[in-house]
């Protein structure tokens, strides 16, 4: 990041104060052996940065700081914290290095005063309740000062409001960090109980392992997300129309989920349901997908199997849970005339009702070789018209609100560069009668009329061209 002058001045100022603090600490320190050991520990804890997204790195340093207060007191803790200056990370700009060294020193310095004020002792043989309370208060101070100093940086650098930053940084991580602080107290107990520096190996080894395992977990999660997206994309190798469709439906249902105030976990499952809703089309023969002209009953039936096929494919992925029901029933209709099960009203799983709306909207607003895309307003009107018949009214409202709040990214024109030429008309299953409204412009198209006249199980054609 390009650092502006105020930021430079701020960091340099911090650096200066930090140096003064270290000077005071050196003058006041007694137990050098333990101090240097703690400093080394700080160095190790800070150097082993894992590729974890969360701030698990800071947690170990926190444990060491708290232990330092109890073992060597504030002066020693400040000196140990100064070892952060020595942490080498490749390619870091000087200002960042200065800041990352100065900040812990100042945090620890401030916290040290709180420790003494709260009656904390150090270097003794036993760890009393008073010491524990003082240590926890000191650590809380350390975290707060940390957030304060950082918020100034963010304000100077990006203009964000300090209070928001503090809240965003402190709130989610405060409790876990305090937990690690408590572990620091345990470390001090072992250290002072006679083990000395060897205690750090015993106590901290499991924490290092935990951190490693957690980083592995995050890596696995990332890979998993990519694999699910690949699964959704696999359909596109055969059916070019679907390109981008699944992604847009996924975005659409996510917006609806936010309007409906879904919890994060459920929102994630919903997003996956949207992404994978058409994955069963892998089972539809290419000849049917790319067929020009009218489809036979058999071919209709083939296409209508895709929700069931979809669940066959992703049925073993246990975490998808509710999403699987959404995929199976995303072509049900509110009035009961959908497929595969003819469910009506609230019988239709919630995810399925949500996907139905977003799916229809996207199919209306994308172009085909045989018809142009409808405008967003037209599509909105169509949704409103089918409220209660085709779609769940609540879901339509949620979608429209989401549209207002977040907008809609329609399909980009260039995406169709790869579509086969006009002589092979790719009829999209979402356009089939009895499923969505037959678009107006298609009424004049003889092929489309033939399709519209095709077997629909004898059910009344809903939403046929006005």
């Amino acid at each position, binding site marked *: 990041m390009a650092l502006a002058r105020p930021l430079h001045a701020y960091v340099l100022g911090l650096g200066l104060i930090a140096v003064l603090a270290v000077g005071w600490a050196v003058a006041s320190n007694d137990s050098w052996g333990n101090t240097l050991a703690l400093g080394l520990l700080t160095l190790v804890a800070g150097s082993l940065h894992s590729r974890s997204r969360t701030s698990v790195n800071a947690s170990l340093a926190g444990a060491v700081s708290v232990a330092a207060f109890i073992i060597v007191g504030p002066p020693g803790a400040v000196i140990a914290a100064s070892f952060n200056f020595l942490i080498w990370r490749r390619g870091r700009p000087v200002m960042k290095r200065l800041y990352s060294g100065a900040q812990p020193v100042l945090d620890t310095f401030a916290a040290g005063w709180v420790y003494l004020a709260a009656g904390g002792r150090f270097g003794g043989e036993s760890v009393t309740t008073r010491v524990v309370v003082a240590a926890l208060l000191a650590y809380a101070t350390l975290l707060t000062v940390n957030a304060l100093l950082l918020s100034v940086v963010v304000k100077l650098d990006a203009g964000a409001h300090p209070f928001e930053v503090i809240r965003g940084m402190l709130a989610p991580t405060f409790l876990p960090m305090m*937990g690690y602080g*408590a*572990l620091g107290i*345990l470390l001090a*107990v*072992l250290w002072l*109980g*006679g*083990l*000395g520096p*060897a205690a750090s*190996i*015993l*106590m*901290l*080894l*499991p*924490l290092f*392992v*935990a*951190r*490693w*395992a*957690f980083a*592995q*977990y995050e*890596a*696995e*999660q990332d*890979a*998993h997300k*990519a*694999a*699910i*997206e*690949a*699964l959704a*994309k*696999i359909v596109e*190798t*055969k059916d070019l129309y679907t390109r981008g469709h699944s992604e847009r439906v996924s975005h659409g249902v996510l917006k609806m989920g936010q309007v409906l105030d879904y919890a994060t976990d459920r929102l994630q499952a919903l997003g996956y349901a949207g992404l994978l809703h058409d*994955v*069963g089309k*892998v*089972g539809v*023969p*290419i000849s049917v997908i790319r067929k020009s002209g009218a489809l036979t009953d058999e071919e209709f039936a083939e296409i209508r199997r895709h929700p069931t*096929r979809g669940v*066959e*494919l*992703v049925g*073993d*992925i*246990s*975490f998808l849970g509710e999403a699987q029901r959404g995929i199976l029933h995303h072509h049900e209709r509110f009035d009961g005339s959908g497929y595969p099960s003819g469910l009506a009203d609230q019988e239709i799983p919630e995810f399925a009702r949500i996907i139905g709306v977003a799916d229809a909207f996207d199919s209306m607003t994308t172009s085909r070789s045989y018809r142009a895309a409808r405008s967003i307003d037209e599509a909105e009107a169509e949704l409103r018209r089918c409220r209660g018949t085709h779609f769940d009214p609540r879901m339509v409202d949620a979608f429209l609100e989401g549209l207002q709040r977040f907008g809609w990214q329609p399909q980009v024109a260039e995406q169709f560069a790869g579509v086969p030429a006009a002589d092979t008309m790719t009829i999209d299953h979402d356009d089939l009668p009895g499923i969505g409204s037959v678009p107006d412009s298609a009424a004049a198209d003889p092929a489309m009329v033939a399709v519209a006249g095709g077997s629909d199980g004898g059910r009344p054609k809903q939403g046929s061209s006005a």
Partner: protein
Amino acid sequence: MSSQLFARLGGRAASGDRARSKASWQSWLLRSAGAGVVAWGLLETVVTGVQEPATAAAFGALVVAGELVRITYPAGRVQTPLAWAGGLAYALRCSLTGESGSHRIGQAVAVVALGMAIGALPHAVAGRELGVDSMARRVLGVAAAAAIYCQLLVAHDAEGAWQGDIRLEALVMLIVVAVVVAIDWALRAALAFGRTSGSLWRHFITEVGVAPGIDASVIATAVTLAIATSITGLWAIPLFSIPLLLTQSSYRHFNAARATYAQTINALSKATELAGFTVVGHARRVADLAVELGAVLGVGPHHLTDLEYAALLHDLGQMTLTQPLPGGATVGLPPDERRQLAAAGAALIEEARIPGRVAQIVGRQAEPFGRGPNGSAVPLGSRIIAVTNAYDDLTRGQSGVERSRQALERIDRAAGADFDPRVVAALRRQVAQAEGGVSASSSRVATGG
């Protein structure tokens, strides 16, 4: 012996085979030893009375808790690090209370055994895997730790050469626990050796590699608990278990993510089946067989997962075809086409950002053995998949010893040119083993055994 090959060659399990295949004789030996030690320990404790009941209860509760929060690994393996650490810590406490003598060991064993039994109850009620072998190992491990530490070392150190200094004590404890954990690895390897093929040494390496982080944490926590309880009393038990709990929790997340990932890869592999390009079950069979051959040929445990995923996805390139191949078989195609399909599959896998060498293995599966394009050797995984794919294509997944023999002949003819002779030889051995099992089972069935 491969159950897949066994079934494929027409082997049928006689009624008694099922139960016998569950637990080998090594397993029964272990369980008997464990049961014997537990019986002796309980008897001992009852006869000489419980010493320091509060401590016994506290550690017992820890073992119970450890059993309740056990970790399950994707392959069905179960671990209870907290119970393990707690049991070992209790076994180590003898010197710190000045007690030594055989009842110490007995009580340690009794407390741990009772704790494990109580903690396993909810799992048994829920119908989950009990892991009796694991319990037997742990009981023996606790007995060994107590025996080595208390009987051998503490008792022989009457002058207090190392007992006065807590740091030296910790060091000795660390060594003892590490030795016991190593023995546990060896026992696990011996049990696996009884169940599947592969050398004892290879099994040992595998067991070490399952979760070395957890094992190291168990060693550290056992010593920590033993020492901390002497400094701060019984409160140390819940407090100083926290780091291990954190480690366990992270591992649990990690395993869950791995399991989910495996499910997703499975789904990806089913896509070609659903699209009608490949035969149902082909990918799974190739993967199972490839993993077996891989284990026998010395592929390490981490690379085995790569191999499995690569085998599951080896036909992904067929998604780019417009017409499905007859029987989904690539074995009859000209080499250029096969290479093209392999490359297409590798491209899709790379796009899916599947980590590891999966894309590389899939991409090079169609290369003839011995002649890499730029002189580089074809990866072992690719060579294995080439052979197992051909075997499954040629037997069309159908059973029958004759069919299998014909397939092997065809593969043999191409060994050295297309296929790696070492891999082909390994396949032959596996098939021969399965055949031996088949003829044994059919004779058992015939005689009504």
